[in-house]
């Protein structure tokens, strides 16, 4: 039932997931966790990776059963599969990284309701072979992770003047020293707006604007040669 992916198809799926159809910046899906958990790089990347794991697994699972799921009840079936996978990830995280689990808390079970997971199941996994679907799920998740990392980094940097704070929650106490203080700790720098929800909205808006600007650029740079007698 599965055919292997051609290089072109893989490149297309990777490009879509990471950039062209980026879940956070283009599809604007799953904004609830993006806005709520992006207060630091570590939080953002952790939730992003958990989401990528779930989207990859669920897309593969759904693609593998797509021929047997009756069209009329496909959504409940998809959600049940996704919920089972999320429960798995949640239990693993609780066992392995209890401190991080305490920080991310409610947002882990809420991955189930993340629009990206169901959207990929519905739009891609239910009509594509398993390898394609798995790659698509992982890449969509990684695209979201990228947004979460950049947004988390921006908010952390402007809000507290640090990067990678809270790393000890993931890698243990030894990582406490890895926290980068771009502004010396003694300065007690704090810019509350960046840490509060408005900062998440403003930051995401700036990221989206930045992507739009970047994509509009190539069209502008090769300026057409001015016609003679006309002002440049």
């Amino acid at each position, binding site marked *: 039932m599965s055919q292997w992916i051609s290089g072109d198809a893989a490149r297309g799926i990777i490009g879509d997931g990471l950039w062209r159809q980026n879940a956070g910046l283009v599809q604007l899906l799953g904004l609830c966790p993006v806005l709520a958990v992006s207060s630091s790089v570590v939080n953002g990347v952790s939730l992003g990776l958990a989401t990528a794991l779930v989207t990859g697994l669920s897309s593969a699972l759904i693609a593998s059963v797509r021929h047997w799921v009756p069209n009329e009840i496909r959504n409940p079936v998809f959600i049940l599969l996704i919920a089972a996978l999320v429960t798995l990830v949640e239990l693993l995280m609780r066992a392995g990284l209890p401190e991080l689990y305490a920080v991310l808390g409610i947002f882990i079970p809420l991955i189930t309701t993340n629009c990206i997971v169901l959207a990929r199941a519905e739009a891609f996994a239910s009509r594509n072979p398993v390898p394609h679907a798995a790659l698509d799920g992982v890449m969509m998740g990684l695209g979201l992770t990228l947004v979460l990392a950049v947004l988390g980094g921006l908010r952390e940097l402007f809000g507290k003047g640090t990067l990678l704070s809270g790393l000890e929650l993931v890698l243990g106490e030894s990582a406490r020293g890895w926290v980068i203080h771009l502004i010396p700790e003694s300065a007690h720098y704090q810019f509350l707006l960046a840490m*509060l929800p408005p900062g998440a909205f403003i930051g995401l808006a700036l990221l989206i604007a930045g992507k739009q600007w970047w994509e509009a650029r190539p069209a502008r740079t090769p300026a057409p040669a001015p016609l003679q007698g006309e002002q440049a």
Partner: protein
Amino acid sequence: MMSSPFLAQPKSVRQVMLWVLAALLPGALLHSALHGPAVWLQILLASAAALLCEAAMLRARGLPARRFVLDGSALLTGALIGLTFPPLGPWWLVVVGAFFAIVVAKQLYGGLGNNLFNPAMVAFAVMMVSFPAQMSQWTPHAALSGGDQLLYVLTRDLPAGLSADALAGATPLDAVRTGLLNGQTLGVLLAGPWPVSLDQALLALAWLAGGLALGARGVLRWQAPLAMLATLTVLAALAHLLDAERYASPLFHLLAGATQLGAWFIATDPVTAPSSARGRLWFGAGIGALTWVIRTWGGYPDAVAFAVLLMNLCAPFIDLHTRAPAFGQRQPGGRR
């Protein structure tokens, strides 16, 4: 935006801005007499930052920087920031505030005429939310000499024997709020013939005078400020009659905080207010009501900035529902 019969000469943006700046002068002079020369330093810093940000953003957007910078709108925003921020706040407070006002609230929304929110009030709200401690450092009297004030603003250095805590004072709004939270009653808190100090009352009157002059010159339109002050007065009077020990008198609300400055110089911003006369009445009434509600039950010392921003948000909606119908147009179920 003019309505027929086009009797008045249309005014240029620059003329209007210069008039408004001139009308701010009596208040600004009194403000600096009460709080010291640091006020002028803050105005200078805020205006310089606002003009620089404006020029940089106009250049980045490929617009004629010279023409739009000289229209005075950024200068007015800077002046309003300098006047509304605490006079002894650190220098970067007004600079970051001006950056948010011009870059985020004004130019990213499309520049003068397209901004949804009043830039000066965005600056105030952003800095109030982000730096509540620095934004509530109001000194009641000039406890420092002029030179020491300027030095304190720029370097945070105080002359020997003075601490920052000794300088900090509460505004009347602040004092009333904390006093009420601590179980005191207004009869004790606002004892004396006047609910606010003479300084406060004079300052409020100076803003009022500037506003009235603008109104008489036809630079501002009366609906928003009058509706705001009337709504604030009525609400405060009703509550005050109900329980004078818990709700401050209308006179207190009219004289304290930024009521007069907000009514005459903020609520009258033609860009962020509705464009119909009936709309401006609703707009002003909303600001007045929200100011009273936030002052009475809210968590921040003053409410005018938040009230204005919330009503800015409603302005397009108000415009939609107060638009005069075109001649002969019938609105199904409408009022006209």
